[in-house]
C-alpha cells in the first residue's frame, strides 16, 4: 500500500542507501503531502534514521534522487530543519542552553556573520515555545533527557523552517515532555508546516500522525494512518526478517561490489 500524492513536499525517487557498500535501504519511492504530521515507523535497524538523513543529503545515496518543494535539496536548505537524535552529541560541551538554541540561526546568518540582536530574540522565543526560557543560562551538561530534547526542538524552531525532520524526538523523554512536544507538532501543522518524525512506538503512532511510512529495509507502506496501520501491513513490516536481502547486502560489502553498475 504505497500511496503517491500530487504536489508533494518531499519526493523520493528510487533511493538506495548503503553503509560501507552494504545497502540498508533498497529502492525507496515515496511522496509526502504538505502540511501533514508524518511518522516513519519500523523495527530496529529498518533504516528509519537512514531514510531521513539520506533525504536531507547528510548521507550519500547509492542511487536515486530527492526533491523537496520540487527543488534539489541544496536550493532549499534554509527552509529545512533537522532535529538529530539526542545521543548524537556530547552534552558535556561547554555551552549554555541559549548558545545551542542560537545555533538554529546560524544557517540564515551564513558564514562569518555574528548573531544579531534579532537572532537572540528569535532564539529566546523558540525557548519560550518549548517552556525552557528559565533554563536559558543553564549549562547543557546539567539537563535531563527531556530537557535536552526540548533544547534541540527549540533550536529547530529558531530556524523558522517549512519542513522539519526529527529523529526519535520521543525516545527516552518523560510524559510531560512527550505531551508538550506533540502539542507543539500539532501547532506547527496548523501553521501549514510539514513534520516528519522517526518514531518507534506503535501504540501512540495512530494517535499522533496523519500519514505513516512503514519501513523495513525497503518501503512497506506509505499513506494515511488509518489505511496503513493495519494488521496486515504491520505483519509485513515487523514479521519475518528478509534474510536473503541482508545476505545479498553482506555479499556486496564483502566482494566490494558497487550498488549500481553505472
Amino acid at each position, binding site marked *: 500500500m504505497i500511496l503517491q500524492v500530487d504536489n508533494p513536499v518531499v519526493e523520493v525517487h528510487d533511493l538506495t542507501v548503503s553503509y560501507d557498500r552494504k545497502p540498508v535501504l533498497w529502492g525507496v519511492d515515496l511522496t509526502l503531502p504538505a502540511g501533514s504530521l508524518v511518522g516513519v515507523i519500523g523495527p530496529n535497524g529498518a533504516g528509519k534514521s537512514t531514510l531521513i538523513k539520506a533525504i536531507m543529503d*547528510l548521507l550519500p545515496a547509492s542511487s536515486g534522487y530527492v526533491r523537496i518543494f520540487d527543488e534539489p535539496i541544496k536550493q532549499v536548505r534554509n527552509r*529545512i530543519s*533537522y532535529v*538529530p537524535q539526542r545521543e548524537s552529541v*556530547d552534552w558535556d560541551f561547554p555551552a549554555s542552553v541559549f548558545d545551542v538554541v542560537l545555533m538554529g540561526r546560524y544557517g540564515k546568518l551564513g558564514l562569518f556573520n555574528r548573531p544579531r540582536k534579532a537572532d537572540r530574540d528569535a532564539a529566546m522565543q523558540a525557548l519560550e515555545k518549548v517552556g525552557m526560557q528559565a533554563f536559558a543560562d543553564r*549549562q547543557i*551538561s546539567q539537563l535531563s533527557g527531556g530537557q535536552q530534547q526540548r533544547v534541540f526542538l527549540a*533550536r529547530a524552531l529558531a530556524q523558522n523552517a517549512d519542513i522539519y525532520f526529527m529523529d526519535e524526538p520521543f525516545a527516552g523523554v518523560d510524559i510531560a515532555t512527550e505531551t508538550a512536544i506533540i502539542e507543539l507538532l500539532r501547532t506547527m501543522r496548523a501553521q501549514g508546516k510539514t513534520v516528519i518524525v522517526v518514531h518507534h512506538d506503535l501504540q501512540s503512532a495512530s494517535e499522533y500522525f496523519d500519514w505513516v511510512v512503514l519501513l523495513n529495509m525497503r518501503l512497506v507502506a506509505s499513506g494515511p494512518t488509518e489505511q496503513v496501520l493495519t494488521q496486515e501491513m504491520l505483519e509485513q513490516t515487523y514479521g519475518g526478517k528478509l534474510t536473503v536481502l541482508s545476505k545479498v547486502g553482506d555479499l556486496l560489502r564483502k566482494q566490494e561490489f558497487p550498488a549500481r553498475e553505472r
Partner: protein
Amino acid sequence: MSEFIEFFSFGDANIRYVTIGSVLLASSSAVVGCFTLLRKRALVGDAVAHAVLPGVCLAFILSGTKNPFILLLGAFVTGWLSLILIDYITSRSRIKEDTAIGLVLSVFFGIGILLLTSIQHSGNAAQSGLDKFLFGKAASLVGEDLVVFSAVAILLLITTILFYKELKLLCFDETFAKSIGFPVRSLELLLTTLTVFAVVVGIQAVGVVLMAAMLITPAAAARFWTERLGVMLLLAAIIGAFSGITGAFVSYTAPAMPTGPWIVLIVSMIAILSFAFAPKRGWVARMLRRRHNKTQILEENLLKLLYQLGEQHEDYFSNRTLDTILSRRNIPKREALAGLAKLKRQGYIKRHAEGWALTQEGETRGKRVVRLHRLWELYLTQYLQLASDHVHEDAETIEHIITPELEQKLMEELNYPALDPHQTKIP
C-alpha cells in the same frame, strides 16, 4: 635572583622579543588546541607534531638553508601528509583510528630522526641548531624566525576568532552543521590546517616530542574552570602564555636546558592544580561537598534525636544528657559532642549544666527532619509497594536531601497524611 630581575624588567630588547614570541606561539596553539580537544582529536595533534620533523629535515636537505619559510613549508607538507594518511587508513581498512595514529606517528618520527642524524653527520656547517626542533629552544627565537612565526601565530588567532561560530558548531554537532548547509568538509579542513600550523609554529619553542602537550594541556586545564567556550579559549590562551614566558625565562637563564620539557612541566602543573582546585569539577571542591554533607547529616540526626525524645515525653524543650541522646542511636561520642557544640554555636540548642535542650529554631528543624523521614517512608510504601519494615533505612538518607519544593510535592501526592506506615504521627 638578579637574573630573574634582569629578565622580567625586559630591559634587553632580545628578552622582549623572545618573550613576545613565546607568548604568541604558546597561546595560539592553546587556542587551536581547545577546538582539537572538543572535537576529540587530541591524539591527532600528537601525530602531526611528530610528523613535522621529517618535513623540517627534508626542507633543510633540499634547500641547504635554515630559512624559516622553507622549514615551515616542509613541516607543513609532512604534517598534512600524516593527517591524510591517518584518514585514508581509517576509512579504507579495518584499522581503527588509534592504531592508525600510532602507526603514522612512529613511521614519520622514525624517518625524521633518521634524516636528522644523517644531517648532523654530514658535516654541513649550517646544520647546527636543527636539533632544537626535537625539544625546543625558545631563546633561539630571534630575527627572521621570530617575525615569521609570530605572524603565523597571530594569523591563527585571527582565523579562530573569525570562524568562532562555525568551529563551535562543527565541534558540537557536525550533522546539524551539515543540515543547515555549512561546508563541513571545508571547515574540518580548516581546523586541520589550523592544527598543523599551530604545531609548526609551536615546535620552535617546545619541540616536536612534547608539542602535543602544548596543544592539549592548556585546553584541558581551562575546561575545568569554565562552562563557556569563549572563556575556555581565553583561559587556555592565558595558561599557554604563562607557560610560554616561563619557557623563555628558563631558556634565557639556562641556555643548556631544553625549553620544551620546562614548558610542558609548568603547563602540566597548572593542569594538575586545576584538576584539584577548580570549583565544582575539581577534586577538592568535590571532597568539601562530601564533607559538608557528612556534617549536615550528623547535625540533623542530633536534632532529630532531641526532637524524638521530646515526642516521647511530649516536652520538647527540656534538658537531655548526652547518654539519653545517644541511647536511641549509636553515634560515636566525640563526633556527637563536636556536632552538639556546633549546633549550640548556630543557636539550634542550648547548653545547660546537666545537658542540652532544643531552642525554638532547633525544634522546628528537628521536626522537619522527622516529618521528611516519615513522609518518605509513607511514599515508599504507597508508591513503591515496599513493606513497612523495609523503608526505614532508605528514609534515613533521603530525609537529609529533600528540598522544600519536593516536600510540598510529596505532601500533595500523599494527600497531606497524618500517620506514617508505622502508625506514628507525622508532625
